[in-house]
């Protein structure tokens, strides 16, 4: 039996709770907190009740219990940190992850901020404490890209890694190409469908994709980079005419993130790409090609966001830890 504490009860947190309820994963939740409330229960929290409270617009727990309380006081093996990303300083998630690692608790997170900003420090802390720090869900949602690169492709030298890392941009570009929509029209449609935030800057200016490149560069490619190292151009200035000009040559335009480790290239920019290229995926899908010396080129395609899909990556990390090492079981 693995005991976990979940910080964040938004789309991802609830997706994890639903998966735990639906499947026999041998996981008990002993701590749970959203931004306004929390619960600590060593006997196991009633997730169905917490989900019902949250979905009726209420708080998941008691107003007197903070996320910091859950991190410090709950009895758990793994902290599951799934609060929204803060790219400025990674807080408050970064502090919570540090505190859990110091308590010798494993950490699984979907939060890009702490991993992009402080991976070397957090990794050292995890090693010192003899625990795992896993973050598959930070990059490309359901696609097990980090696991594939760290485990399946171990021993390969990665010469190039490139692809579609942002589903919002991919949706907008797909719609502009298919329907001749303007950027503003396609963005409005993406908002209506819940694919874009009220302030879409983070997605459409390529910041989200750039952070994912930083995470991959720092965690699996042995580079030491920060967000400012990424040469970044977004899609907000694209015109339907530009997409038509590409179309005339059997091409289209996609926002591509690219890392060439040897040349030190880290770049997010709209690129012209043949329509039959494997990276030309439709809608909100993500697609990444990894160029390696032994395995050749591998392309991964899958859902880059979504409640259940991101939960899949978190649960994969949890079961990885469960199969290797869980204290108190």
């Amino acid at each position, binding site marked *: 039996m693995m005991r976990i504490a979940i910080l964040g009860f938004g789309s991802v947190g609830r997706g994890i709770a639903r998966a735990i309820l639906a499947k026999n994963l041998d996981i008990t939740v002993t701590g749970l907190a959203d931004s306004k409330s929390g619960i600590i229960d060593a006997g196991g929290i009633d997730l169905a009740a917490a989900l019902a409270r949250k979905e009726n617009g209420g708080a998941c727990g008691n107003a007197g219990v903070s996320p910091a309380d859950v991190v410090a006081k709950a009895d758990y093996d793994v902290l599951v940190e799934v609060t929204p990303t803060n790219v400025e300083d990674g807080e408050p998630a970064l502090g919570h992850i540090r505190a859990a690692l110091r308590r010798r608790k494993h950490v699984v997170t979907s939060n890009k901020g702490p991993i992009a900003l402080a991976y070397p420090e957090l990794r050292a802390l995890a090693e010192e404490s003899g625990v795992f720090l896993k973050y598959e869900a930070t990059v490309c949602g359901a696609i097990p890209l980090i696991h594939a690169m760290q485990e399946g492709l171990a021993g390969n030298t990665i010469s190039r890694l490139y692809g579609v890392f942002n589903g919002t941009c991919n949706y907008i570009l797909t719609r502009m190409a298919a329907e001749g929509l303007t950027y503003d029209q396609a963005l409005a449609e993406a908002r209506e469908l819940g694919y874009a935030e009220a302030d879409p800057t983070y997605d459409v200016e390529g910041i989200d994709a750039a952070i994912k490149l930083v995470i991959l560069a720092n965690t699996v490619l042995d580079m030491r980079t920060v967000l400012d190292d990424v040469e970044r151009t977004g899609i907000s200035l694209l015109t339907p005419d*530009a997409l038509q000009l590409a179309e005339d040559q059997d091409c289209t335009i996609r926002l591509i993130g690219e890392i060439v480790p040897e040349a030190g290239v880290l770049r997010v920019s709209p690129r012209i790409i043949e329509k039959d290229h494997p990276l030309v995926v439709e809608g909100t899908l993500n697609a990444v090609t990894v160029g390696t010396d032994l395995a050749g080129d591998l392309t991964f395609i899958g859902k880059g966001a979504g409640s259940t899909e991101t939960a899949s990556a978190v649960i994969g990390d949890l079961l990885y830890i469960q199969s290797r090492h869980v204290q108190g079981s």
Partner: protein
Amino acid sequence: MKLEMKDQPGQLVAALKPISAVGGNIIAVIHQREATTPVEGLDVQIVLELPEGRLDSLLELLREQGVSVVRIGEERLLYECTLIMIGHLMHTDISDTVDRIDRTGSAEVTELSLVMPAINSPSSARITIRSTTRTEMKKAIRILREVAREKELLIIEPLEGA
């Protein structure tokens, strides 16, 4: 480039040797006896890539070998790259933008398709650049990036290079 040489053993090798001697790269060799060719001659077409400025020394070496060059093909720009530009292309002097690349002498804009939208809206253009070598293409794209920064244009490069 089309070469004509005597139909004697060893002539083809004699014609090819100087190419590597000047650092050239042979892409294709096509030779056939045609009815129009004089009996003692053999027509050979060689497609090759040559570092800049080496053509004269190659021709000199070929002459020494007794190989006469019938015709030098006009298509000397081997690498092609198509990009898309978005911005106020006309107001920022598109002929200057094109000229900045043509001025390199080793890369040139061979095609430009411009779409003019409503007044004051940014226009979009597809631009095709050809160059003699990959290095020259990279240089041309670098120039285009600089021009784009200066004129606040958005440049969309192909995923795969030239």
